[in-house]
Every structure is written in C-alpha cells, then in structure tokens.
C-alpha cells in the first residue's frame, strides 16, 4: 500500500501534500457568504436571554417572573427548577485522575448561583431584544453566601466551602515524581527559584458562543446548529442528559468563528437552550453577547507556580521541583474536566531537557469565579514559562549564555524514542536541529551587538528564548480511559460520484485552521484526482463518520491519516474496476490526475469519469461478481504512543521603555517540528496566530476580579487583546520529524505558537532589564508590573495582609532573591500589584 503513495517522496504525481494550496472555503468567507450559527434563521424561531447572577455565591430564594411575562413578545421564563426536571445533571470527573471530585451541575442552578455571570433564569421571547428587556424585569431574591474567591485561601481552615457535599474546595491533587529530587537539590552546585503567575485569561472568539436548537415533536428529533469543535461529543451529551436516543440528536456545525478550545466544552446555558427547545417544541436561538462571553466562556491558566531548579558546575540541570496551584471556578467543566490543565503542567514541565530528578505537584481548587478549562495549548504556556524562566535564571547564575545552557541540556537529537522524567514518551524530537535553525534565522551575534550598542543610549532591548514540547494527536489515554465519551479515533468516507468528482466526509471539523483544505489535499493525492474535484463535508453528525472533532491538534494527524487511507482505498477500488475494463492487472495501472494510466509508461488509458459513468449507469457491462465499491471509509487511531509530541523553539526581540514600563515587540521567530507539513501556508499561520495568542496572555489579557468575586472586565476596552499595531512580524521555520505511527506522518501544529510565546517574552523582558537587576515573573507583564520591578512605582496594593490579594501584593523594595546556595533560606520572588491598566493602550 505504501508504494501507491509515499508522501516522503517528492515530485510524485498529483502531489498536493506539502504544498501551499489555498483553502477551498475561504472564498465564501471573504465575500461575507459564510454561514455561522447566528446566520441560520428557522421558521417559528424564538430567542433566549439569560438572567445572570450578580453574586459570586448566593442562594436563589425566589424567582418572580410575573412582570417579565407581561412584556410584549415574551413567551416563557424558565428557572433552574423548571429545567432540572428535563435534564440529568452532570459531574465532570475523569476516572484516571485519581481522587478528582466535582459537584453535579445543571443547565441552570436550581438552588445556588456560584459565580458572577452564571445563568440562573432563561427568558424566551420573539426577539433577542424583547428577551433582554424582560431579563431586566425578572425579580430574583438572592441570599448572598460567603464566597471562596482567592485560590490561595480556598483550602484554608474556615474557607467558605462551595459544595458542602464535597467536604472542601479541593478538586484534584497530583504529584508527579521521579528520581531523587531532595538528594539532587542537596548536592546541587547552584539552585535557582522563582514564583510564577500566569493570569486567568480567556479565548475571546470573535464569534461568540452560539447555538440554535430545534426539537421536532412529530419526529422526536433534536437538531442543534452549534458553534462547536466536537459535534459528535455534543450529540452524545445532549442525548444522555436529555434522555434521548443518540440517533435522535443531530448536531450541525456550520462555519465557526474561532474556537481555540473555547468551544469544545459543555456550557450549561447552551444545554439549557436545547432543553428549552424540547419543552417548547420549536427552534430556540442563543447567541452570547460580549459581556456574557467574558463572564461565561471558560477562563484558563489561573496558576501560581513555585519552581526551583538545581544545576551542577558544568551547567547541567540535575533536578526540577515545582508546586502548582490553580483555581478553576465552582465546577469542573464537563466532560473534559478542569483538572487536565494542572495535570498537563505537571506532565510538561522540564519537557525539552535531559535530566533525572523531577517533582511536580498540582493542586486544583474550587473558587467562586468563572469556570476554567482547556484553552489553546492547555498547560503548555504555563509549563514552558516556568521551565524556561528557571533555565534563564540558571544561565545567569552560572554566567552562561541562554543559548549555551540550552545546548548543554536539551535532549539530544537522535536519542529517541525516550521517556521524559515526567513520564512522557517521545517518539522523535528535534530540539537541537530546531535551535540550530532558529539561530540561523535570527543572527544572534548581531542582536547582542545591537543590544550592547543601544544600552549606551539608555535603550533597553532584550532577547528571550523558549524551547518547548507540544502534545498532539491524543490517544484514548487523554479522556477515553477516564470514562469520557470523547472519541480519539476519527474516520473519513471518500466516494467517487458519477461525474468523477470526489466527496470526502470527515469527523474532524473546521474552525478556520484549514481542516477542509488539508483533507482535500490529502484525499486528492490519495485518490489521484485534481484537487478542484474534491469536496469536503465536515461538522454534521448525521453525514460524517463518528469522530472526535478538532482539538488538541488532532485534525491533521488523526483526521488526515483517516482521509489518506480512505483515499488510497478508493483508488484501489477504482483500479480494480479499471483492471477489469481494460483487461489489465490493476497492479499495472495507476490513477493520476483523474486519468487511469499505465503505471510504467504513464500513458493514459481511460478518464476516471468514464469509469464512474460505467459503474453507476452501465454496471451491466462489468463482470457480475466484480466489486465496484467507489466509496470507502477508513478510521485511524494512534496505537503506540499516548500522544505524538512535537517540539520547537521561539525567540523574541523586544524593547522595554524603562520610564513607562511599556514593552514594544520588535520581532518574533519560531521554529517548530510538527512532523509532515501538509500545507506550509496553513501551518505557518497556525503558528503565527498561536504566537499572538500567547503574546496576549503574556502582555495584556487578564480576567480581573474584585476581592468579592466581581468580574471587573466587561468589554474589550477593559480586557486588552493583541491588535495589529502592537504585533510584530513573525518568522516561522520548520524541521520535519514525521511520526512513524501513520503513513502521513503529520503531528499537530496549532498550539506550538501559544506554548512558547509567553516564556520567550518573559525571558526577553528580563534580559532587557538585566542592567537594573529587575525581573518579572507574573503575567501579564503590564507597564505597572515592570515599573514596580524597576522600583519606579510602588505597588498599588498593600503588602500581604490583604486576604483578597495576598499573592499579587508585594512592596517593590522586595528585590527578587533569585539565587540561593544549597540549604540557604529560599528567597521569594514577589510580584507587584494587579491592575496594570493605568498605562494601558488606548484605541481609536
């Protein structure tokens, strides 16, 4: 089979794999002719607006909807009690995350609101505007309860316990340990340590969460147009919790306006919409507005990590020890759970490096804030910032160049397969080749010379590096083994129609990454037809093979391999028929560019369209027992490795204005190895887009809360995001180490950018600030935090005594004590105040 198509050989016929082919579905998008959920309009459609909790924690004593129901156009008001009768609650735990716990969650909470913004009642009206008018008239009597807001005190004695049945606010705890950590630290030449913070931030998809659910009482079927990454998973969720047979639920995702992990979760308000559609027997639409998005889209990356690293006199890492704490909101999010991010952190820390002694602990706690869950590059940016921050600290104390310490410690190319101290299995990585390629791209000596020259003029530029690993192509070990109905396999059905054109239906989905484009390339090459003749169907549970959808960078690696195998199977089926028609051995024939050709001479024997005409309309002329199966389905699942790890390295070049604390990004580079590159144009933009999301988390984005648990952001004027003017040009390079698990050899590419960018920026800022002996470790690196590190402004909040914000408070005079000799008292790196917005950018 491998000789029919070998993506490893160049200049093969109909070769599309590896080429920058534009996306077939882009034309409709640039003309405004896409179809997002809000563009779908159905007869008798009604609209939902939710009444949302103004309290971080409160008992819902009474809901009086009388005034709301009197308004024109208002049809129904539903409470949590109303919906609870029609929907089984869910508990988001995974069996393989030992000891994990969470509380049952309903579409709307029947008794208690547990975060600001949680939907507590639903108003259904003829228009969204009418529903919103009525929301203001729903009178809810709340009895405020003590809230657990700060993750640092969530487990303290006397903390308000959010779910009494759980006993405390602990969701999950895990220690990942190997080697002899304490001995290694005791024997260390030097130890460096710091406390890192990654800020709670969110995905901010430009298309908000959207669902249009329609229940047809006559057919008993629920159809949901849903802006989601995982239609089959949602089909199962709706069916299970609404008591419907899975076959009676159809989930359709039309165009999706960005997802990045935000749209792969079960949102209670979206389930409420489906339940309401069933109760009312008509189409019900809910499109979140921006404020609702900030308060209810999952947040992510709210971590505090204490990390230390031991090195020997030769600059080799001997041990890493980290303690991670993360607050996830009042519920673990269904069905992926909110413990996975912390779990990834303890799996990924130290990932690129060759060392023996490792300990990482994560503590995952409940709190009364918006639930957090998996967002693009889950855990990676956190683990990378901690690892790379410690590596740079070690370089500094050893007097080594940051590149040199990486050279001494990166896992050597050619030493794979191997297992990391954290227990991750690597099939094949290319850290050294990637670093070498990066250095060739950046002209490192020139940058250092420029840095030195400008310092004389009081201009402070820095360069920062970050090596990273990225987990892609997840097997059932990610979710399935824990009991979640999340498919790790995916399928593709490829068929040839009478006009010789090809249709491919795939279980992976499109949210703008270019899934349809790569499936088209792969199928065109697999079958042997011009790419223009291939149409791709995605995102419909009724018409595509069952699959997991697109998340964790599995579209190309899993969905792509299924498409390749299905395409090859169709080609073989065609050649079988062709052999009979042409009285030739099918082995001697090939299908190239839509023509059946002699394999040896390349001479054309018959157009494919003629073969398909005969098969469909004159089957009587073929031998009676000849199979003529011009439609084939293949599935793929990885088997040897739990995950296909990729790797890469980033560099960031920036300037810090030491008077204003502003960071100006000058240039960013990334070399990444995602195995076989199917479409360089798409991969590069995945990397660039990912890097800019990482930059957002590093410099701007923060879901701020008051000590009482009030969300302090309400618009994109409060929650800053990367905009064009502040972003640098980004250069992308590739090293290709294909996975041998598949013929295609592709691994994922969507998260590498986000994984490494914050660490590279942090290291670059600290490099720029070197002459001032100032350092920052708390993201986002706002002007205020940088000025506080420079000792130029006091922190805006008093020192530690504040119960609400003890972590982020420190006096600026507490100079970072970064380096300790073995056994000396550990210094603590403190980070200054929270609100960095006084210097925030303004926008026209």
């Amino acid at each position, binding site marked *: 089979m491998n000789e029919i198509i070998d993506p490893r050989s160049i200049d093969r016929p109909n070769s599309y794999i590896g080429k920058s082919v534009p996306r077939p579905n882009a034309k409709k998008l640039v003309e405004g*002719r896409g179809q*997002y959920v809000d563009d779908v309009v159905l007869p008798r459609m009604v609209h939902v607006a939710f009444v949302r909790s103004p309290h971080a924690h409160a008992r819902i004593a009474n809901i009086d909807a009388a005034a709301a129901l009197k308004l024109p156009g208002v049809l129904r008001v539903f409470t949590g009690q109303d919906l609870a009768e029609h929907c089984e609650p869910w508990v988001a735990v995974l069996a393989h995350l030992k000891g994990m716990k969470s509380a049952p969650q309903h579409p709307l909470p029947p008794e208690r609101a547990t975060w600001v913004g949680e939907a507590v009642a639903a108003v259904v009206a003829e228009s969204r*505007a009418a529903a919103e008018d009525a929301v203001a008239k729903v009178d809810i009597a709340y009895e405020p309860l003590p809230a657990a807001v700060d993750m640092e005190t969530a487990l303290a004695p006397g903390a308000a316990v959010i779910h009494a049945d759980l006993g405390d606010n602990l969701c999950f705890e895990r220690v990942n340990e190997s080697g002899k950590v304490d001995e290694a630290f005791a024997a260390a030449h030097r130890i460096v340590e710091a406390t890192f913070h990654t800020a709670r931030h969110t995905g901010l998809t430009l298309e908000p969460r959207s669902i249009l659910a329609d229940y047809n009482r006559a057919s008993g079927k629920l159809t949901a147009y849903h802006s989601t990454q995982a239609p089959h998973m949602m089909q199962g969720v709706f069916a299970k919790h609404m008591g419907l047979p899975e076959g009676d639920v159809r989930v359709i995702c039309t165009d999706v*306006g960005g997802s990045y992990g935000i749209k792969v979760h079960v949102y209670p308000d979206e389930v409420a919409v489906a339940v309401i559609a069933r109760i009312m027997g008509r189409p019900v639409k809910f499109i979140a507005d921006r404020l609702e998005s900030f308060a209810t889209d999952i947040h992510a990356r709210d971590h505090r990590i204490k990390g230390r690293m031991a090195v020997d006199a030769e600059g080799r890492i001997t041990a890493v020890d980290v303690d991670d704490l993360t607050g996830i909101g009042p519920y673990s999010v269904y069905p992926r759970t909110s413990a996975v991010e912390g779990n990834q952190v303890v799996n990924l820390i130290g990932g690129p490096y060759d060392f023996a002694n490792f300990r990482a602990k994560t503590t995952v706690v409940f709190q009364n804030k918006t639930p957090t869950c998996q967002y693009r590059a889950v855990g990676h940016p956190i683990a990378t910032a901690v690892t790379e921050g410690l590596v740079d600290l070690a370089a500094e104390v050893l007097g080594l160049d940051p590149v040199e310490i990486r050279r001494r410690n990166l896992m050597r190319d050619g030493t794979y397969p191997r297992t990391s101290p954290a227990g991750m299995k690597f099939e094949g990585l290319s850290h050294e080749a990637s670093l070498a390629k990066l250095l060739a791209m950046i002209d490192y000596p020139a940058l250092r010379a420029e840095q030195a020259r400008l310092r004389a003029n009081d201009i402070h530029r820095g360069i920062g590096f970050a090596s990273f690993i990225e987990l892609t192509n997840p097997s059932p070990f990610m979710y399935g083994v824990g009991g979640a109905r999340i498919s790790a396999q995916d399928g593709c059905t490829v068929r040839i129609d009478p006009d010789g054109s090809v249709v491919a239906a795939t279980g992976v989905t499109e949210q703008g990454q270019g899934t349809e484009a790569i499936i088209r390339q792969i199928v065109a090459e697999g079958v042997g037809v011009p790419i223009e003749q291939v149409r791709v169907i995605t995102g419909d549970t009724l018409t595509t093979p069952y699959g997991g959808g697109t998340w964790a960078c599995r579209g190309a690696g899993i969905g792509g391999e299924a498409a390749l195998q299905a395409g090859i199977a169709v080609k073989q089926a065609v050649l079988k028929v062709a052999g009979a028609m042409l009285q030739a051995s099918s082995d001697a024939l090939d299908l190239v560019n839509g023509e059946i050709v002699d394999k040896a001479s390349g001479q054309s024997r018959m157009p494919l369209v003629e073969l398909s005409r005969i098969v469909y309309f004159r089957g009587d002329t073929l031998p009676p027992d000849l199979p003529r199966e011009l439609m084939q389905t293949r599935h793929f699942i990885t088997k040897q490795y739990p995950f296909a790890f990729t790797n890469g390295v980033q560099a960031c070049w920036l300037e810090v204005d030491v008077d204003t604390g502003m960071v100006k990004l000058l240039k960013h580079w990334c070399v990444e190895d995602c195995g076989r590159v199917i479409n360089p144009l798409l991969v590069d933009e995945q990397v660039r*887009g990912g890097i800019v999301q990482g930059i957002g988390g590093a410099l701007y984005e923060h879901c701020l809360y008051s000590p009482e648990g009030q969300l302090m952001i309400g618009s994109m004027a409060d929650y800053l995001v990367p905009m064009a003017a502040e*972003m640098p040009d*980004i250069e992308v390079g590739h090293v290709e180490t294909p996975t041998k698990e598949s013929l295609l050899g592709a691994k994922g590419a969507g998260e590498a950018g986000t994984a490494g960018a914050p660490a590279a920026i942090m290291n670059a800022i600290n490099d720029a600030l070197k002459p001032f002996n100032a350092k920052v470790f708390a993201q986002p690196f706002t002007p205020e935090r940088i000025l506080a590190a420079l000792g130029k402004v006091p922190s805006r909040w008093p020192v530690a005594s504040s119960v609400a914000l003890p972590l982020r408070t420190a006096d600026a005079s507490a100079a970072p004590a970064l380096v300790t000799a073995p056994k000396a008292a550990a210094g603590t790196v403190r980070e200054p105040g929270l609100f960095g917005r006084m210097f925030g950018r303004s926008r*026209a």
Partner: protein
Amino acid sequence: MSTTLDIAMTVNGERIARRVEARQHLIDFLRLDLGLMGSHAGCEHGLCGACTVRVDGRIVRGCLVLAAALDGATVETIEGVSDTGEIRDLQNAFIARNACQCGYCTPGMLLTAADLLASKAEPTREEIREHLSGNYCRCTGYHAIVDAVEAVARQRNGKAQP
C-alpha cells in the same frame, strides 16, 4: 420602549424602505431586517471592528450607528462590494495569503483595508498595522493580513511582488 420610525436608504445599490425600532443598530437592521449576514457583531461596544460597513462612502462601526439615523443614507456591505468586484484584488490576496482563517473578522477587515488603500497608495507595514488596529482578529496574528494588504498596494501600483 419601542418607538418606531420609517426610513428609506440605499443598501448595496438597492433602494429599501422599512419601519425600524429607534434603538436598533445598523448591524441588527442589516442582518435581521435585510438578511445581509456578511456583517458581524463581535462586541457591540465599538471595539472589535467586525461590524465595519460603509455609510455614505466612509467606514463606520455598524454597532454604533442607529439604523433610524440613516434615513436617506447610502450603505455598502461586504455583500455589495463583493458583487461589484470593487475589492476583488484584496479578497484574492486574503485567500492567497491565508489572511482569513475563521473569517468572522474578515468582512470588516477587508472594508477597513480598502479604506486605507483608497487614501494611501502605498502604505508601509506600520501604516497598515496602524490603520487596521481597530479590527480585532484572533486567528491570524495579523502578519498575513498585513502581507495581503501590502501585496495589493504594490499590485495596484504596478509593482512586482517582493
């Protein structure tokens, strides 16, 4: 609460007349009343630029303009400029350069880019970034968009691509 007004305007070259609620913004009017779904609402706070449309030849944030205030106006949306072919080169460049991923920002981004090129024949990369800096795109990281706009500017000036 619902005060209505009668308005007439020209939308994508067609004359239309409707009765609208005084509080309805232009994007809701285009989408809900006229079925023009190409203009998107990303924030309704005037901050993301997804709702950018043209009113009397100038780009505006459709979420900040009330339809009722536009009696007699000429409105052009992405559907209109696509049909006339006015920005075909920009659209082609966005496709060729993969400057459009999920596409949700794209109609607004294209109209803003067209606005820049109408006033400035050969903007620098910095000027392109500056002009587009009110249009949020979460997918692309902007680099490809800047490339596409730069390429069209060069092309319109008869210059070879770099």
